[in-house]
């Protein structure tokens, strides 16, 4: 089971966390999330797998935790 954490405004769109199965890469996961939550398309965020920031497609295993984090500017 892969856990997905949503931060900031993304949590308003998708809830603060969800779980998925049978997803093997971050690209595949993103495609699935975009279909499930079309509003994500207009949001800016970075992706972390198991608490490490990634910058390209990354292989996921059964126990991966994926976090989607938007930038904040408030002070």
């Amino acid at each position, binding site marked *: 089971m892969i856990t997905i954490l949503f931060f900031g405004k993304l949590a308003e769109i998708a809830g603060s966390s969800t779980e998925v199965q049978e997803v093997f890469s971050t690209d595949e996961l993103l495609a699935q999330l975009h279909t499930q939550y079309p509003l994500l398309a207009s949001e800016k965020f970075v992706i972390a797998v198991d608490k490490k920031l990634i910058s390209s497609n990354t292989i996921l295993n059964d126990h991966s935790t994926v976090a989607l984090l*938007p930038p904040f500017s408030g002070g």
Partner: protein
Amino acid sequence: MNNDRLYERYQRQVILKGLGAEAQQKLLKANVLVIGAGGLGCPVLQYLVAAGVGRISIIDDDVVDLSNLHRQVLYNAQMIGKPKASCAVEVLQQLNAQVKFTVYNERLTNQNAGDILSLYDVIVDGSDNFATRYLVNDACVLLNKSLVYGAVSEYEGQVAVFHVQQGSGYSANYRDLFPHPPKEGEVLNCAEAGVLGVLPGIIGTMMANETIKLITETGTVLANKLFTYNTLNNQTYELELTARAETRLLIPATLEELMQTDYEWLCGSIKVVAEIDTDEFNTIIADGNAAIVDVREKDETPVITEFSHMQISLNRIAEHTARLTEDTIVVFCQSGKRSAQAVQQLITIFGTAKKIVSLKNGIVKWKNEQTQIV
């Protein structure tokens, strides 16, 4: 104040194992710049001043507003309308008169950032917009300054320490986390999204903690890490960051280049308006298919008789869109500024259904160029 009284003031932190009198001396010698005296800046300042940081400077061009008081805890109702940086120092001096303060009641810009930031050991960013955040990050990388970062939105906050010297290199910076600035509208700011008052209190206090650890070389700072905190469910999350060589390519190569980098534009604070030059303008006039609109006031000169057009002044244009039936709308004014605003207004009404452009540099320049041709 004599040494005994000084000892008494800081006694509770000096007796801490791992801190001590040497750390207190490091704080006294430190020179810190706090950018933004808002929700984050207030607690940062309060704790750094209380802890005995020797020299503290504050830069903020804003004034105190009633809507600030729920989270910007240094201010009171009597200070509304007054400059924040000055008001903050007024309060902080009462807390610790030994601290030497410098006030910049101005905005940090690409023009003054290099000169100002170069004066300090540690930079603390509590600003409230992406243009300043990217500017501060890039300047810190160029000047090799450690940057204590905090940001909040609604119920969530982020803390990190960027560009800390580690051996011969430096830890990750803001662009290793978010390489490119978002455009205006992609991410909400506090005014649009709201913020729970205690959130910047918590995050700002954590920033003060990181600053004190950085100065006194105590504990482990959040270098190569991003810490997030959610006030609703008390969940925390710590993310590992890595300094990446390619990030350096996104940052201006020199301070001179930084001064020429328009951060407001990069962050979409200024909306880009489609502009046309004299030649394109003349082609459109010759085609005769576009609505050409003079958005100046009725009595402004030069009066244009060279081509047929409508006159609808800028402040009335949103009410008179029914007159604009053509697929292409060209607006002009004296210098190109009001026409650019008109384009923005019209785009919000028509969206992408019409081509809407502004005459670059205005009708006076156009008229001069026509005279030269003749």
